[in-house]
């Protein structure tokens, strides 16, 4: 089929995994490549539909911004929110060092 997408390379898969923040081990890249290629091959049928001049529809309801009344309310207790955290220091979430930015 002429509208088949360009083949997905292992490098593409590695790039998408990085964007998705998923550590995909080397040995699983090929299986992701195979599955994604098959799905994209099927999805290619979208290219055969004429969509000229159509406004994208992001949502089924035509709702505009809905404003709520401005009423002060109490928030959830910090202890309840921290109960699920994997690592806590005092009233804070503990994370590895952030300065230096994300590595690639």
């Amino acid at each position, binding site marked *: 089929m002429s509208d088949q997408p360009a083949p997905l390379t292992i490098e593409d898969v590695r790039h998408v*995994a990085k964007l998705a923040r998923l550590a995909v081990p080397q040995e699983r890249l090929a299986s992701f490549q195979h599955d994604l290629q098959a799905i994209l091959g099927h999805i290619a049928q979208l290219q055969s539909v004429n969509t000229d001049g159509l406004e994208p529809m992001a949502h089924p309801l035509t709702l505009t911004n809905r404003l709520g009344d401005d009423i002060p309310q109490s928030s959830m207790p910090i202890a309840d929110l921290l109960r699920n955290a994997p690592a806590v220091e005092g009233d804070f979430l503990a994370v590895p060092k952030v300065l230096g930015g994300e590595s690639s």
Partner: protein
Amino acid sequence: MSIDLVQIRNDIRTRKTTARATVDQTLARIAKNNPQLNAYHEIFDDQARNDADRIDQEIAAGKSVGILAGVPIAIKDNIVTRIGHTTCSSRILENYRSPFDATVIDRLTQAGAIILGKTNLDEFAMGSSCEKCAWGVVRNPWDITRVPGGSSGGSAVAVAANLCAAALGSDTGGSIRQPAGLCGVVGFKPTYGRISRYGLVAFGSSLDQIGPITHSVRDAALLYQCMAGDDPRDSTCAPRAVEDVVTTLEETPRTFRVGLPIQYRKGNSAAVDAAVARAVEFFKAMGATIVDIDLPLTDVGISTYYVIAPAEASSNLARFDGIRYGHRTKSKAAKDLFDLYAQSRAEGFGPEVQRRIMLGTYVLSAGYYDAYYRRALQIRRLIKQEFDAAFEKCDVILGPTSPTAAFSIGGMTDPLAMYMCDVYTVNTNIAGICGISLPAGFDETSQMPLPVGIQLQAQAFAEPMLLKVARAFERAQGGRAYPELKKV
């Protein structure tokens, strides 16, 4: 032994039985059958018994009680509850306890319902078989070598096997209707925005809808009525009054037109086609007008869905990063924040969830957004227009819920083939309209008879008419059938 939630509710209220006896009997059936079926991940025995005793005391004291007083309800484990855990059948949320209740939980418990337990699903509601549940496969009570469907398979099995009075599911592309069809029970997906999504763990936010899985259409109508309506905590909830669907349910619908899409006739098993044909004869005999309708984008729906849903999922599931809640890797190799995210997510999410996150990330990535995501949203509008045109000619659309009865566990390994099972259900969500799956007979060609479902779809907010038509069909069928189970 046809019994439904409304019957149980009436018997408790008139003191033919008690809430406590109902809960005890249900718990005994669960103890006997759940180890094999795996419908429930967690059961709240003590709390359910306490709630039941409290309701029985209120009834005995002559106090007025809610319209669901004493009925035990099962909750799909992607709807948050303060009681117990909410895991989405995923390792990444194995120990998660919600600090709040979903709006639907508030509304059910305010009406007196008893929350009995949490049911298994395909991880994060991504699947059509309940084989992709981190807590083991769920089994179809009609034949335990078969899948129950998914993703609300645990809820459908809990109802089919009579392990609850009713259950809640969620439907993003058929996840209420398909398992209900494969398990021989009623599954109702209301119009998008009819029931608050507050506290439903988001998968595809523009597609997701909570709905009931029940023994009968009247149960579905009652639960819908209890849950529907605007919610300040969900800005996508429809700000629109909810009609009374319960008191009008038994009215025979006035003259109505049933549309049969010509695209719904190929690739179905003979038993599925026969079930639809029987339903057509029934509606004809009722005096309905039968019209052919054209939905040429039926097949394209799967492709459209598998762009929009993974795109929304890849964004929604970004919140699971091992920082505020959920699994965090213990690997010493995770030295910085990126490694911590990527390693925690790789360890916590199963293969299908990772596949969909990857697919969604790809279709949203630079260079592909217009070709995939934007185009899918344009086709979404076309699909909506196609339904709008069809509903000029008919009031309800009749067809199969799924092309076949339940398949064998382990029998469908190709992800794409699995996606195709949802061909008749995804477009309901894409267009945001409502649909219901009804038990409509059995496929007798397999070793064990397997339930077959039919689906009725109706225009957005046409629930009162859809439920009346469904109820009329149900009345003519008699009560639902029950699988043989281990006796208590």
